[in-house]
């Protein structure tokens, strides 16, 4: 039950009436890494935002066995670490240290604990020593890593990542991919980066127009060229039949 993610018939309609998600059902077993792929506008980001209750959805979501509703929000938000698409939206504090400490501070942790946890989180992403730096001066790759640290510091059980390698140069992409590979959490990764999908995930879910159109082992899905292209995706090299 722990570290699992269970979505049942999740739907979401925007305030202006557009329906973004149509009855999406999904299950992630503990420790599983699943890719969420699909064209732009498919609803991937929207789906991730429902996981921690940012968007009010219809249907049911269970995070580690706990239903996502108003009462459980604080616990859910600690359990689900959400990484946003644009790190500049996520790094809103004046310094790296304050950014990583934001979550623990608002959770009311004792001061001594916070300092050590922040240090651990930064070390985990290879950003130790950068505590006093200003977000604006960081490179895209560094921003992503600090954002991950700011999420990791809360000891989440599930990570929901929105386009983690977007905007990164090849080396930063590789480093981030390696970092993610070493992390034990259950992961749902919305991405266009097919190489990351191939290297990191065991299962993939194809989302298009707010609906799940295909689901299965990554290895199998990536071989289906027609499926990929119908859904606005590209087959990574070396996977053609």
């Amino acid at each position: 039950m722990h570290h699992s993610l269970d979505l049942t018939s999740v739907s979401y309609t925007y305030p202006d009436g557009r329906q973004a998600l149509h009855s999406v059902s999904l299950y992630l077993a503990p420790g599983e890494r699943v890719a969420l792929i699909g064209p732009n506008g498919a609803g991937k980001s929207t789906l991730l935002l429902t996981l921690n209750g940012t968007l009010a959805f219809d249907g049911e979501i269970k995070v580690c066995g706990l239903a996502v509703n108003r009462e459980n929000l604080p616990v859910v938000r600690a359990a689900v670490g959400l990484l946003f698409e644009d790190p500049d939206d996520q790094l809103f504090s004046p310094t790296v240290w304050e950014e990583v400490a934001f979550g623990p501070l608002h959770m009311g942790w004792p001061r001594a604990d916070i300092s050590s946890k922040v240090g651990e989180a930064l070390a985990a992403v290879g950003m130790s020593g950068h505590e006093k730096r200003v977000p604006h001066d960081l490179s895209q790759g560094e921003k992503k890593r600090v954002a991950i640290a700011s999420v990791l510091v809360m000891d989440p059980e599930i990570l929901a990542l929105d386009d983690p390698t977007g905007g990164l140069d090849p080396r930063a992409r590789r480093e981030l991919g390696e970092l993610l590979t070493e992390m034990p959490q259950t992961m749902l990764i919305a991405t266009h980066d097919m190489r990351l999908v191939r290297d990191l995930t065991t299962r993939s879910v194809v989302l298009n127009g707010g609906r799940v159109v295909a689901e299965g082992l990554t290895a199998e899905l990536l071989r289906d060229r027609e499926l990929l292209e119908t859904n606005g995706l590209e087959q990574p090299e070396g996977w053609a039949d």
Partner: protein
Amino acid sequence: MNEPGIDPGAAWVATLAFVVGVALLPDGGWSGWLAAYGVLLLAALALRLSMVRLLARSLLALPFVVAVAAIPFTTPGEVAGQLPWGWTFSHAGLVKAGSVLARAWLSIQAFVILMVAYPLTDLLTGLERLGLPGLLVNTIGFAYRYLNLIRQEAERMLRARQARAAGKGPAGGKTWFELASTGGLLGSLFLRSLDRSERVYDAMLARGYQGNGPTWRQLRWTGRDLLLVLTALGGLILCWWQGRGWV
């Protein structure tokens, strides 16, 4: 940058006391202001700051000197001289203009020392500990964080627009084109900033934000801080007496 070792809140109080003291010295109190500058030099030395750097930064703020030039012509007093076209200026006016300059410059220097000695976030924390409302301090913090980002967005948009404005001179209806496109540019920038603030809010929620947050709100002054503040206040009182003619 070295750690000053003094609580930023205490530094604020000392700086404010300095600025007020300098303002309380009467017009023409040159010796007082010279002493004040000596105090600043001592502070800069104690904090191991480069005087050259401080001077350079304070010069940036000097354009107001132009305004000061009008003072000798508008202050009543014994006439000291006359310009070729008849305007007269007074002794009192010259003294006053010099005094305004001295006060302004000393204040700027003190401010610069504060800004160079501490990172802005420490200064904001200091202000909050002194009692400035948390919401305001946090707003300033956000503004500081997103300053450069939004300015860069604006510059990019301006450059993109300029790249497309092939023709130079306005021809007929084109006069309003520039205004309309500026409206669009600023409007777009506003919308992007607005949307960004929504996403930032979502990011804050995702990390447990539940309304105005806790911060390190404790006023903890060491003996050293207290000594500095008391000395500054003492200096302030001295200046006040000097201004009243009691010293």
